[in-house]
């Protein structure tokens, strides 16, 4: 198991929006968050939205203070995520098959010959 830091940048929250204002952080440095947990509320020229966490991990750094304007593409938050060496990630679609101990219900009778 290894740890890796991942920085999440502010996505385009609408069609062609260029920036957003941080209203309220819902996490702090050192917090452990799950994927899709509420991360931060931001306000764009269209609306205020809560951005869900794209990762499960520990918050290492918040790159903007509340009331600060963040351009799209600028760092928003850095996570420390745990990367498992033995649980490979599937491609873009599909799941890595779980290697379970094979089971069966059918019992065989050896042939007479």
């Amino acid at each position: 198991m290894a740890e890796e830091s991942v920085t999440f940048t502010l996505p385009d929250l609408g069609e062609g929006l260029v920036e957003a204002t941080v209203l309220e952080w819902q996490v702090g440095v050192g917090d452990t968050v799950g994927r899709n947990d509420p991360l931060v509320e931001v306000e764009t020229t269209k609306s205020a939205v809560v951005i869900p966490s794209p990762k499960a991990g520990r918050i290492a750094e918040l790159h903007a203070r509340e009331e600060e304007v963040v351009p799209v593409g600028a760092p928003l938050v850095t996570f420390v995520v745990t990367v498992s060496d033995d649980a490979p990630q599937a491609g873009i679609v599909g799941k890595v098959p779980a290697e379970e101990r094979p089971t069966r219900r059918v019992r065989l009778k050896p042939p007479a010959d």
Partner: protein
Amino acid sequence: MTELIDRTGTETQEAPVVELSMQQAVNRALRVLLAEDPDVLVFGEDVGTLGGVFRVTDGLQKEFGDRRVFDTPLAESAIMGMAVGLAMNGWRPVPELQFDGFAYPAIDQIVNQVARMNYRTRGAAPMPITLRLPSFGGIQAPEHHGESLEAIFAHTPGLKVVAPSDPGDAYTLLLQAVRSDDPVVYMEPKARYWERRPVQLREPDEPIGTSRIVRPGRHATLVAWGAMVHRCVQAAELAAEDGVELEVLDLRWLKPIDAEGLAASVARTRRAVVVHEAPLTAGLGAEVSALVTENCFRDLAAPVQRVTGFDVPYPAGPLEPQYLPTIDRILLAVQRTLEF
């Protein structure tokens, strides 16, 4: 870890043993091929910058440059059409179609051009193309991302078809496929991409169309390829607890089929069960069954059994476990041959 047994009884040549997954083994083979032959080109959707959706081409563009390893538009027909043109101009293309279900839009190029060109030109334009096709189910992917097209390709004159079942074979068989001057459809079993195994990176030392006995046994032969080999080995391990010794024959090449190796195994065990993911009707199991019947009819103690997918479209993810041959279905078929 199943011991690898060479059907011919010859010693496999010594090569260092490394632990690799199939995706890494295929990557290694591609690296060897790109390095040894400047005419080898690797291309397809996302194979370059991204390194492939299954990481199979990871790092190749960086190492060999974007003229040898490159991304294509999302157009399978164009990918295979480009392979034809490149092959006619002396290149050795190794295109990837990202998922087997995406091969259908390219069927015209594959069947009407790739497979026929050598015949059409009386050998003036051979097609040394190896189509890498992540194949079969087992990863619970959405529709069109899991298919079992081997019978379609095996039925097409001019194509060779191969499906490795483990990382070691994946390496060796890809070297063999790409170095062949004939077009080869190389079907990578997605469900087996990730498991790491100790691998001997062997140079090909057997002719194209050689099968392999993965596990010896005397009561019946399980015939399989791709991901089903692993399932058959699991079934054989469980059958052994009941005192039934199943031989597992990995066909490897689905065109040409190793009729001789198949007959030799079944002549010994007198019973055969063929296992595949594709639907039953007109699947390759029928071909295997016919070959066994033609070549060792008098040795058979029971009719050849087929354990296959069902005659329905390949189901989307959640229904896969009900569709794919299970260990119980395999063992039931074995029991039918034992009791016949």
